């Protein structure tokens, strides 16, 4: 284990050195650099940055294990967290980029009204904050597990590194460190996955080869008290309807999350935004296609080792995890006959979701350096997501509320930058404190983030772009009903803030309510907009203008297609 610790230090210090160097080199002076990296980010780099921004500590560490134990129904996360990018790429990214300002509340504020701006800024802060606390503790888990640091120091160390590059470099610093972080995390994820696949099936392509172990895995899972991996709608209580709604909520939430959307403001062109979305999903898919394979392989290895054995003859890789509290053996008659990932299941062997990925290098028989790299990858995932979220919090406070609402756009550039940096630092300090004493509800509250993004932002963004008639009154009403409906159901069904959990209505879980909330928001926005006055002509004109990437070029540049656009070509000036 000492070898492992040494290598972990080597990789963590090395990668942190890289991040800090990048941050120093991309330090910024202007708000345009601070909020949108001067809109000069190359689409491939932006894609990698989106991917790192998106894949959190939970995606990196926990998802494969979660999918492994959920079996087929784990696909709600796999499809939900990738399918949203199709919506983002086709319905939002190019148009928001064309409109081209700094934040998401800024778009809805300019499109609808100042009331909507404030509601959106508050929602953006709440959503991002619940998320960032998870990243701080996630980073802490990696530090304490691999480096033996105390959890407190681990969280503080995480915070200091993020502080350095986000306050100094803003969006620009964050972007280029995220590119480095993506590289670290994907390499760390794929190497052990390939090794495990090679060892278990002799085919080094995990995404293809995990099919060949599925029937063996199914049989073993039945013997050990789990459902079959391949059977649909048994992993979650709500059955098919719930799987459908959760997938939809995660998709709509993904498309509505502010920290992902703002990344599309950083490209130079509308075309760049479209291609960024492609690169982003391609980079994300590399991990998401691998996760179920890693889950299936490590799950099989674990079950093979556990079945019928006593605590003493479990596979060697389990021992250190059991010391760290990730594995509990509780077999009354000494022999393991059931396995679960739920602490309250009463199974003979209880395993945390997290270890399936973190232990994959050991399962694949990889040497110590790879295990160290894995730790650096987990850190990269936590840091990159946290930085992106902090920028949303800071920009909502400093740009949307202070600059646009308090000073009415009169603050000079220097002052805006200062306020931006101070807001960023404050957000980080609060996040560190929350990370040190994670409020008990944090685990539950991540469901809030997606549900709220789906039921507040997504509908009014879509209508704001595609329906000129949508107005401020409608959007405010829609957002607030979406918020109250979704938040209300979550409070009703989750055990948070001292409330007790109630039965799910019709089997709809709190994670799935966001999709219904989005429908409610759409309906309310449309009806109320119809009943009230249409938006001012200049706003309708703005909606019209974001539909076309550039002003129409003179006809010479267009080939034979001239006919259709002849009329428009001659009047460059008439183009508003």
């Amino acid at each position, binding site marked *: 284990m000492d070898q492992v610790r040494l290598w972990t230090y080597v990789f963590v210090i090395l990668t942190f050195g890289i991040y800090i160097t990048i941050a120093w080199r991309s330090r910024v002076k202007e708000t345009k650099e601070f909020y949108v990296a001067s809109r000069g980010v190359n689409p491939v780099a932006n894609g990698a940055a989106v991917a790192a921004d998106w894949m959190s500590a939970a995606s990196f560490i926990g998802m494969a294990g979660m999918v492994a134990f959920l079996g087929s129904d784990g696909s709600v996360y796999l499809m939900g967290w990738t399918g949203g990018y199709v919506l983002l790429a086709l319905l939002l990214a190019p148009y928001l980029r064309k409109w081209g300002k700094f934040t998401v509340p800024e778009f809805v504020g300019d499109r609808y009204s100042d009331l909507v701006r404030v509601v959106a800024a508050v929602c953006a802060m709440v959503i991002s904050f619940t998320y960032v606390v998870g990243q701080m503790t996630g980073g802490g888990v990696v530090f304490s597990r691999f480096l033996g640091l105390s959890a407190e120091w681990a969280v503080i160390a995480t915070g200091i590194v993020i502080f350095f590059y986000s306050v100094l470099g803003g969006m620009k610093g964050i972007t280029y460190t995220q590119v480095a972080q993506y590289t670290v995390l994907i390499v760390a994820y794929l190497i052990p996955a390939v090794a495990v696949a090679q060892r278990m099936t002799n085919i080094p392509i995990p995404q293809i080869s995990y099919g060949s172990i599925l029937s063996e895995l199914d049989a073993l899972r039945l013997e050990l008290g789990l459902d079959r991996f391949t059977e649909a709608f048994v992993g979650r209580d709500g059955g098919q309807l719930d799987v459908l709604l959760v997938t939809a909520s995660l998709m709509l939430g993904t498309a509505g999350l502010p920290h992902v959307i703002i990344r599309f403001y950083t490209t130079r062109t*509308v075309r760049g935004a479209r291609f960024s979305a492609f690169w982003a999903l391609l980079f994300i898919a590399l991990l998401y296609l691998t996760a179920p394979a890693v889950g299936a392989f490590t799950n099989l290895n674990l079950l093979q080792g556990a079945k019928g054995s006593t605590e003493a003859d479990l596979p060697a890789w389990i021992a250190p995890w059991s010391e760290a509290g990730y594995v509990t053996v509780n077999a009354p008659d000494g022999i393991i006959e059931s396995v679960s990932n739920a602490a309250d299941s009463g199974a003979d062997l209880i395993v945390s979701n997290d270890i399936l990925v973190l232990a994959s290098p050991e399962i694949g028989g990889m040497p110590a350096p790879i295990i160290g790299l894995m730790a650096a990858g987990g850190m990269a995932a936590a840091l990159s997501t946290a930085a992106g979220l902090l920028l949303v919090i800071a920009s909502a406070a400093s740009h949307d509320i202070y600059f646009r609402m308090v000073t009415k756009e009169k603050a000079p550039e220097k002052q805006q930058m200062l306020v931006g940096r101070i807001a960023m630092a404050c957000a980080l300090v609060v996040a560190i404190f929350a990370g040190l004493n994670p409020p008990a509800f944090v685990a539950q509250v991540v469901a809030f983030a997606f549900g709220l993004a789906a039921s507040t932002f997504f509908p009014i963004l879509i209508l704001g772009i595609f329906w000129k008639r949508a107005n401020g009154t409608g959007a405010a009403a829609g957002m607030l009903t979406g918020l109250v409906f979704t938040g209300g159901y979550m409070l009703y069904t989750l055990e948070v803030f001292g409330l007790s959990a109630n039965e799910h209505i019709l089997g709809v879980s709190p994670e799935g309510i966001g999709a219904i909330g989005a429908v409610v928001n759409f309906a309310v926005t449309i009806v109320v907009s119809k009943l009230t006055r249409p938006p001012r002509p200049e706003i309708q004109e703005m909606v019209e203008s974001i539909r076309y990437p550039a002003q129409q070029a003179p006809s010479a540049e267009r080939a034979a297609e001239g*006919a259709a656009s002849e009329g428009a070509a001659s009047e460059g000036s008439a183009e508003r």
Partner: protein
Amino acid sequence: MSDPAHTGTGGHAPPPAAKDDWRRQYWKKNLRLMVVLLAIWFLVSFGCGILFIEQLNTIVILGFPLGLWFAQQGSIITFVVLILVYALRMDWIDREFGVAEAPEEAGQAAGGER
């Protein structure tokens, strides 16, 4: 919305000289592309991966029940392809209508217009 004009690909039928006509055509093409791609998106993820997963699971290829494969692999691969097709196809439509961005000036384009 009705669909009166099929002039999109040929481009020879001279449309009425209304100055915003190209805008309508451009937008219609964009919407049509979007609807087709989103239909595929829905079919593969919600259709194959959720609604019909049990029926598809009776077919097994390389050890994968087909429904499970769609839910865990096929849908994600399709999503990536859909976004690529959209980006490439929109490039083409932008050029056809002369609204493609020139790389150098695009930086100001966004800031310049209100």
